[in-house]
């Protein structure tokens, strides 16, 4: 059988060291080894974007990455968005609530993480740029219009 690999991943600022099976995806590692269940899994073959996290600051589908590949990496998940001290929601999270950017909420963590990257790189995106950035995230509930509005609202609040 296969040899487990010692893997060290920093998630939301906390360093975790685990012996993992090589075939374990980063998504399953986060969810079932670290019990960070906010990163959801929608297709496990890299199409839906539900499992999006940031790896070293870049959005990635955690179902398309092995946990062992992320050895040494810094991973940010939806659990890392809230302010640690106060528990306050991140402005992006709050904007999704205020602009009704979610319904069932299952795809939402993926949208939030993708938006986090977008607004970091481009604080004032046009609607087309928002759409381009979110093209890899499927939502079956909202029809996306309210999501675009949420991102726009978040952008304006983050710019202050």
């Amino acid at each position, binding site marked *: *059988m*296969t040899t487990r690999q010692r893997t060290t991943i920093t998630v939301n600022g906390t360093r975790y060291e685990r012996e993992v099976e090589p075939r374990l*995806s980063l998504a399953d590692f986060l969810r079932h080894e670290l019990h960070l269940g906010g990163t959801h899994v929608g297709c496990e*073959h*890299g199409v839906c974007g539900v499992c999006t996290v940031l790896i070293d600051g870049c959005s990635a*589908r955690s*179902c398309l990455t*092995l946990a062992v590949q992320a050895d040494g990496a810094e991973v940010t998940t939806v659990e890392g968005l809230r302010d640690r001290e106060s528990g306050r929601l991140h402005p992006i999270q709050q904007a999704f609530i205020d602009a009704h950017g979610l319904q069932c909420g299952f795809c939402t963590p993926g949208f939030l993480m*993708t938006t986090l990257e977008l607004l970091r790189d481009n604080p004032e995106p046009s609607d087309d740029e928002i759409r381009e950035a979110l093209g*890899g995230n499927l939502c079956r509930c909202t029809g996306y219009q309210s999501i675009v509005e949420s991102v726009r609202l978040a952008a304006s609040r983050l710019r202050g």
Partner: protein
Amino acid sequence: MKPAPFDYHAPRTLEAAIALLARFELEGVEARVLAGGQSLMPMLAMRVARPQVLVDLGKVEGLDYIRADGDALLIGAMTTKTAAAESALVAAQQPLFHAATRLVGHRQIRNRGSVGGSFAHADPASEYPAVALVQDLQFRARGPSGERWIPAAQFFVSYMTTRLDPAEILAEVRLPPLPPGTGWAIQEFARRSGDLALAGIAATLRRERGQCTDVRICAFGVNATAVRLPAAEQALLGRPADGEHFSRAAAIAGESLEEPMSCIHASADYRRQLVRVLTGRCLEEAATRAA
């Protein structure tokens, strides 16, 4: 959808990676190279790929770079597509490759997916092999017996198969410059934005005194590998760069395809039509860029 078990190695150097591959080949162990994993991971999850060992290049030093080599550009195999898409050097010197990169998947995929991985994976629907064939890219392969350069025309063998030996690793891609005045275009047709192309065309041409010279047309997504369309290219050489001749070349492009693939989204005859349409559109677009 969980992969079958496999062992995993993450060597630090290319030499170590090659040594591992050589050893596994000798031992009859099925090993696969893992680059960005964006194409391999779904195959693992569906258990259609069942390697016994993965050799991950993620920790190999010195495979992540974009640098000029005279007029040419050298790109390390593990450079991400996002890095290529955001590189000013690539944008300035390799506009066709740059445009192709931006057509690949979505941001999340480009962030992880490597430039070398796409060439080595040789998916027939991928944009990169078509660019390689149009622009005569060269591939530096490193193996147990040293390194060799493989020209694009020899690199792609068949469906997801390249000239690389089992213990060889694609280390670097060399992109020669587009000759001055070259017009270029790449267009594809997919069901949804970001999906793999049902058909696509990459094309370059130059104009001398209103006549087409050095016409290169390559189709992807239609055969087991990307394919140059010499009949269509020939039909344009020395001809006026105008709509009438582009249409004629486009029609020949569609007809000259050998047994296009068929799938639920596009039958063989529909793929011929797409190649015809996209060839015409690419030639028009390329002509606007040709000096």
